[in-house]
């Protein structure tokens, strides 16, 4: 072997691009880290066995999940059996199931006015109404939009982005934007007066307030559901439609007998997710209408929030009991989703 010519200096070597250097540095650091943890992990695996190692890997996430979900849930449960105004559990007297009894003390569950905690039951009634309208509109609009966006139309990519864009916005931003449009001197009323119409006080009329609450919610979230349905539509093999064409199948029958059944697993996901989201609704409606006029758009979560934090007498125990009731409903809905998704697939 001969030595390199002396004229070649080290700096004459080709420059390594920055990204490649970063990647190499990252790989080196990762390699070092892996070598460091390799020996203790092997030792641990030998001690506890391969199967239990799964729990070791789950542990970090479980710690955070416990800290921010399970522990608050447990505190909430404890609070629901206590009374008083203090935030510290040690200073809260045990009241048993009094909060639940108080919550469920109703002459008729169909008439919130007959309940001792009438705002809670108004919230329940409003949430049910909101969820029903929102669910039907959400599924219908998402399905139609997904069907259209699945067709070979001009500017399909643009429209897919447009429909998804509101999903990226914060619910508060969405509500504020629509509030500016819908308020007394907002864009919509300006438009109405320009064409010779009269101003409509959308947030004063209970019907309009509920309509726009549902509308804004659908507008803000349908992009997400459209995406789920679009993915489902694209997973249906094209040759099934060609077979249906050869079978002389009318278009409506293709939809009912082929598209809809094959889209059913995705539709179930959309229905259950929209249902859960409907029951949980708070921020958009709160910013848009403040629950008004009166209690016309007061939702359960808003009631819980106001009972615990925004009223003069902070009733944490009652709010906790109401949130446990809501939690049970959501838990049942989630179970329903899991079981339906499993059976559909």
């Amino acid at each position: 072997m001969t030595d390199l010519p002396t004229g070649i200096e080290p700096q004459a070597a080709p420059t390594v691009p920055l990204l490649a250097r970063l990647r190499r540095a990252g790989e080196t650091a990762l390699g070092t880290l892996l070598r460091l943890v390799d020996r203790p992990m092997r030792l641990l695996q030998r001690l506890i066995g391969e199967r239990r190692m799964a729990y070791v890997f789950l542990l970090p996430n479980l710690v955070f999940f416990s800290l921010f979900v399970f522990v608050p849930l447990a505190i909430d449960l404890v609070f629901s059996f206590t009374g008083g105004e203090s935030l510290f559990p040690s200073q809260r007297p045990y009241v048993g199931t009094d909060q639940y009894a108080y919550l469920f003390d109703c002459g008729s569950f169909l008439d919130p006015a007959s309940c001792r905690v009438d705002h809670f039951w108004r919230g329940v009634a409003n949430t049910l109404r909101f969820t029903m309208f929102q669910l039907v509109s959400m599924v219908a609009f998402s399905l139609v939009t997904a069907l259209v966006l699945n067709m070979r139309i001009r500017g399909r990519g643009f429209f897919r982005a447009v429909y998804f864009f509101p999903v990226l916005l914060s619910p508060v931003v969405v509500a504020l934007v629509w509030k500016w449009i819908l308020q007394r001197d907002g864009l919509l009323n300006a438009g109405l007066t320009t064409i010779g119409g009269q101003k409509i006080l959308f947030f004063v009329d209970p019907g309009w307030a509920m309509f726009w609450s549902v509308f804004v919610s659908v507008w803000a979230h349908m992009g997400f559901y459209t995406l789920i349905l679009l993915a489902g539509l694209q997973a249906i093999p094209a040759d099934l439609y060609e077979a249906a064409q050869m079978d002389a199948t009318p278009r409506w029958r293709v939809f009912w007998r082929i598209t809809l059944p094959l889209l059913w697993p995705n539709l179930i996901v959309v229905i259950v997710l929209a249902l859960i989201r409907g029951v949980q609704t708070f921020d958009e409606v709160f910013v848009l209408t403040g629950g008004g006029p009166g209690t016309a758009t007061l939702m359960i979560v808003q009631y819980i929030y106001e009972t615990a934090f925004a009223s003069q007498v902070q009733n944490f125990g009652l709010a906790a009991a109401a949130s446990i009731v809501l939690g049970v409903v959501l838990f049942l809905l989630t179970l329903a989703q899991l079981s339906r998704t499993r059976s559909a697939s």
Partner: protein
Amino acid sequence: MAGLTLKGVRKAYGTIAVIHGVDLAIADGEFIVFVGPSGCGKSTLLRIIAGLEEVTDGEIAIDGLDVTRVPASDRGLAMVFQSYALYPHMSVYKNMAFALENMGLARSEIDARVRRAAAMLRLTEYVERKPKALSGGQRQRVAIGRAIVRDPKIFLLDEPLSNLDAELRVATRKELAALHAEIGGTMIYVTHDQVEAMTMADRIVVLRGGRIEQVGTPLDLYNRPDNLFVAGFIGSPRMNLLPVQVVSPGLVRLSEASEPIKVTTGSLAAGASATLGVRPEHIALAAEGADLALTIDLVEQLGGDTYFYGSAPGLPQITVRQNGQALRGRGEALPVRFEPAHLHLFDAEGAAVRPGR
């Protein structure tokens, strides 16, 4: 059942033409096979006939009736897809009944037709199952059943056996041939497998690059290929194609050193380059008077037949097929003689040279 006529059918995607003016007449009750290598346009042509692809130019007629612009649903044809395209959420029964419901037939009529087809295809015990609970062969039969129940004018089959294993493919091939004999319908079958084409077809349409290379009965194509492509494509093992030079009318030579070989040279002039085609079974082992001396590169013993793969200087590898078990080994000399009655000659453009041409 019905006949089909294609006149100057062309298909282009933008500026890319994939079918270049196809003319073809298919008689009522014929079993026609479109065969050719991948990308030759055979599936596209089938889809054009089905109405799943629009033609760029030309005319399609079924029983003399122009259907060029008639949608697929109104052509009265049935298609068996390569993927079978069974509706996964419907039972076998409902898959077969679906098209009949579209036709508005009475429930009793639908039931009778589905049960008859299921019995014919040995599917009776599976009618309540969904496609995912069936084997590949059973799914394939359901796809055929779905076509049969409609009693279509023409059956279109797009590589229906390609997803089956070799053994099942042979069995289903026989079943399809028997089915055609039983129901007597016009069938157009697409495959890239020339063995399927040879064994099933009344007539074969050989396609290459969106053009028909030759149409004929399997033995027509085997015995009298019109050109080099058909000669090489039809037959397994493929025909040996050897470069030759015309010595004089009726005589060609493989090389300066070799003996002249008698073959029809048509109008080819002395000195013209050509290609001599000879099938492996038409090369005999010669004790004396050999046309060519080969050296054996490889021997394949199939029990009933023996294949020798031999080479000679300046020539491509030559396949020789011998009946029975010929006991010769690699590296041995193999003097051979071409059977003059079975030689083919192709001119420099690849067209077959016929007597007087």
